[in-house]
């Protein structure tokens, strides 16, 4: 059910949205401070569940100051109305995810290739191993920047044919069909909000179950799965599709593949399959965006899939283990025509989505706030303007340009 924009006052106390009627009758209380929003639309703050970096920071690039990099981007995206996000790690060598516990033959090879890469860039002789995953914890947003809801681990358990910009030598398959695969790859699942995997990989279904039991959202993507494999994964708990249409088999009328989940009748009752859309006008043709939206409007989740170069001028930059090239609004794997992520900001995506789909203001805003919150199971406190929700807000003008951003009732950015 879609909400609606209505002329009302919004009350906030102690970082949460307050019921003013209760305040009036129970406490006989009044406003201590009034903020005139000048007729702006107040919407729940946007939530970006797929963002690989920006402003020169690449989340998958282990460095000396991983948490500093994430915070830096977190602060900048306040300007786009994003109040919570899932830093995304693309397929990377194990050392990026965790400290390598012991050296096995094949791991030594990977270790050395990582070391070689490091020493190519720096003039150090010794290998310096940095990890990303263990250095970041889930934290609340504030004036310092948008809140981190947990990592989105996009890979390495994905299909080789649909790897897109992900490095082939880092892809993995499931040896055990359970927790051990995850631990060997990632080291730890703390602070992980979502994992993207390909459900056609052998033994993947039990892994899907394992992750869902831990409250981690499982997303299907970078896959050549057919519809039945995808449906099976959903029945085991998968609930998201990573950037619909991209890095999966195209819709076919006799086997719709993952795209068919939008209208599948095999989804367990009471559950919704959400799907990420990069609405930058490049990754998806507007007609395809409209087909998806009309088929399943309540599942559409806007994501930026923003890469390092978002916010930077045109040129060459590094993403994971690859080098990319910016041309205008397009970002390609250097020397190819393979798209490797977008540089559109979340508010651009909201505006483009509304324009391309002809949807209402409410639908456009909910695709960036309510739906991602529902996907991650946090809609009891985020993504809504219900009484008791966290007061993460964004003020927009009628053309949906961001005027101000609030986190927990505190203004954290103003135009």
């Amino acid at each position, binding site marked *: 059910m879609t909400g609606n924009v209505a002329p009302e*006052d919004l009350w906030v106390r102690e970082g949460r949205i307050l*019921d*003013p*009627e*209760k305040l*009036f*009758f129970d406490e*006989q*209380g*009044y406003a201590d401070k009034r903020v005139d929003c000048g007729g702006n639309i107040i919407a729940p703050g946007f939530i970006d569940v797929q963002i690989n970096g920006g402003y020169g920071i690449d989340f998958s690039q282990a460095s000396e100051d991983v948490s500093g990099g994430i915070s830096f981007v977190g602060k900048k995206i306040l300007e786009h109305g994003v109040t919570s996000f899932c830093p995304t790690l693309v397929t990377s060598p194990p050392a990026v995810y965790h400290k390598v516990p012991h050296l096995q033959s094949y791991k030594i090879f990977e270790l050395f290739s990582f070391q070689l890469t490091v020493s190519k860039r720096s003039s150090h002789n010794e290998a310096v191993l940095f990890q990303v995953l263990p250095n970041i914890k889930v934290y609340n947003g504030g004036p310092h920047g948008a809140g981190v809801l947990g990592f989105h681990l996009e890979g390495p358990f994905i299909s080789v044919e649909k790897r897109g910009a992900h490095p082939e030598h880092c892809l993995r398959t499931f040896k055990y069909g359970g927790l051990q695969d995850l631990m060997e790859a990632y080291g730890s699942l703390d602070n992980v909000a979502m994992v993207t995997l390909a459900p056609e990989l052998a033994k993947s279904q039990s892994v899907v179950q394992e992750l869902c039991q831990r409250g981690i959202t499982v997303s299907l993507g970078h896959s050549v799965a057919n519809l039945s494999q995808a449906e099976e994964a959903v029945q085991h708990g998968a609930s998201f599709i990573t950037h619909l249409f991209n890095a999966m088999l195209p819709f076919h009328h006799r086997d719709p593949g993952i795209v068919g989940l939008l209208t599948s009748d095999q989804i367990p009752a009471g559950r919704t399959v959400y799907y990420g859309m990069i609405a930058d006008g490049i990754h998806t043709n507007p007609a395809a965006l409209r087909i998806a939206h009309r088929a399943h409007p309540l599942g559409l989740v806007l994501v930026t899939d923003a890469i390092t170069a978002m916010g930077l001028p045109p040129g060459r930059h590094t993403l994971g283990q690859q080098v990319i090239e910016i041309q205008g609004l397009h970002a390609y794997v250097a020397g190819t025509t393979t798209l490797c992520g977008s540089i559109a900001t979340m508010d651009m995506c909201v505006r483009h989505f509304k324009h391309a789909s002809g949807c209402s203001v409410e639908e456009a805003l909910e695709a960036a706030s309510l739906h991602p919150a529902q996907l991650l199971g946090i809609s009891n406190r985020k993504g809504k303007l219900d009484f008791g929700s966290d007061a993460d807000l964004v003020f927009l003008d009628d053309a949906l340009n961001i005027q101000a951003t609030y986190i927990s009732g505190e203004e954290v950015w103003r135009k």
Partner: protein
Amino acid sequence: MKLIILNDYDQASEWAAKYIRNKILLFKPGADRYFTLGLPTGSTPLGCYKKLIEYYKKGEISFQYVKTFNMDEYVGLPRDHPESYHSFMWNNFFKHIDIKAENTHILDGNAANLQDECQAFEDKIKAAGGIELFVGGIGPDGHIAFNEPGSSLVSRTRVKTLARDTILANARFFDGDLSKVPTMALTVGVGTVMDAKEVMILITGAHKAFALYKAIEEGVNHMWTVSAFQQHPQTVFVCDEDATLELRVKTVKYFKGEAESKTHDAHMDLLKHSGCIESLKLHYGLVDNASLIIAVKTQIVENVDFCIIVC
């Protein structure tokens, strides 16, 4: 009794709102002198509340020194239920104006002891010095507040079981599901409203026409409890054309004519005493000529009264 007939719902709402506004302004309320207002709920007064909110937003009136007493509230309905009269008053009036919560009084339909709650309400009215102006509506069965047909005309605030007609009329607010409509309510009595210094009844729509006829053209009868106000010294009935459909043509012509002639007399009087209109306005802190004319009236003649407010 005065019967004010306006063309349609919007005009009737505006007239009533202006009347309330001007009465409050003339009273000149302050920290030691509150204006006590009795208030109704339902669809009829919505337009009037909207207008009052408009006047507040324009800066023409403040409710800082106004105390309100609502007529009724359902029994057993949670206070934050969207159909409770607390929610109605909050959403349609209180949240848009500068009234203080401690100055609003609505019966608590979830009180532990309903009788005590009713008695306490009467005591609060007394403690506030009585009600200056009680605004009310009329049900299709002629009831005022929840004083259903058969209610004593000298009744006080008490618990009432709702009549079938009332439950049916209210069903539209509860998804048309009769089982969801509350069956009991706390209500001020006919006697409670009669104690007010002045009473204004709003009646709009053809479905209220028969009740209006019974209220003013027939005798005082406990089957049509609004008729009790025939015995109140200062009552105004404000209605639209549709609500007069069951009245005799003679009655309607009489009151329409009265309004016209009194307006004419009022203008004559004003011209006589015009002198310094602006300083008079200033003296009374009034915003327009309409309210000025009331002031003129209180200074000079007694019978040139309500109609002038319409101008």
